[in-house]
């Protein structure tokens, strides 16, 4: 059973991680398990439950110190920029979809746009979910995000090059640029960070 003191520690850690823009659900889960193990260990050594809890928390370290160590490995500004860009792309493609289905422009290709809009929404939602959850996504999730990002870049560049002849010239340029940036930043975030960390560990 989790005591109030442990719950407060985990809440403080979660708040500190969010405050640092570095929330990582895996770290929070592992620290919770760590505290449970440490308390059980303390009780096995003959400590009263209350003292075992205090010792476990003291040994774990202040939540803000743990959060600072997590934050040190997270590119926070780029992470927030990518979050904002994903949200903006989803909103922009939703706005364009509504505009198309209300205004019914004659030259629009509705079936292609429906597929593209669905892709933008799914890719945006998946990227936002991965960023909000924090930490490293699994190999499959990372592969899925990168594959989706490559498609975004291709669609974005195509939209930019075709914008001059498109019905939504201004929107085409804007959305194309946003998709390209989102794709490139997502790949950069989930691939370059891994490479960077590998290089750091070699030092």
């Amino acid at each position, binding site marked *: 059973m989790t005591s109030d003191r442990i719950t407060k520690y985990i809440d403080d850690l979660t708040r500190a991680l969010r405050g640092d823009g570095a929330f990582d659900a895996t*770290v929070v*889960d592992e620290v919770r*398990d*760590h505290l449970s193990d440490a308390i059980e*260990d303390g009780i096995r050594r003959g400590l009263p439950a209350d003292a075992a809890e205090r010792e476990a928390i003291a040994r*774990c370290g202040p*939540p803000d*110190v743990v959060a600072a160590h*997590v934050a040190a*490995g997270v590119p926070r500004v780029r992470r927030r920029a990518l979050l904002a860009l994903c949200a903006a792309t989803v909103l922009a493609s939703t706005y364009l979809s509504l505009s198309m289905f209300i205004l019914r422009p004659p030259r629009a290709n509705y079936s292609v746009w429906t597929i593209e809009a669905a892709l933008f929404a799914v890719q945006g939602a998946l990227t936002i979910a991965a960023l909000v959850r924090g930490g490293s996504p699994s190999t499959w999730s990372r592969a899925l995000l990168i594959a989706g990002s490559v498609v975004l870049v291709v669609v974005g560049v195509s939209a930019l090059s075709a914008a001059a002849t498109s019905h939504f010239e201004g929107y085409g340029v804007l959305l194309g640029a946003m998709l390209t940036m989102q794709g490139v930043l997502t790949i950069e975030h989930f691939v370059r960070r891994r490479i960077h960390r590998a290089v750091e560990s070699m030092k």
Partner: protein
Amino acid sequence: MNAETLKGHLDLLLLSVVADTPGHGYAIAEALRARSQSLIDLPEGTLYPALHRLEDAGLISGRWSQVNGRRRRVYQLTAKGHRLRTQKHRDWHLFARTVYAVVGGKP
């Protein structure tokens, strides 16, 4: 021995512990404490970002599994981690021998 003193050496320490005793975070923290005879005094919560950094670099792999009826994230060394640990171990011995040669004493 605090975090500042251990800066730059934590990776080797963690790789060595995980190599000998693959396990979950608490077991790794306990092994680190026991093997250092309690001389290493790190906030144990800070081991997790360090373990994740090593995992991101492909030096250890972590996966959730059931241990004693509880779900825990268990870490073990990868082949790449094994190679780096061997190299860092060699570098450390060379460094220690060099420093001892200058300041006197035995490694």
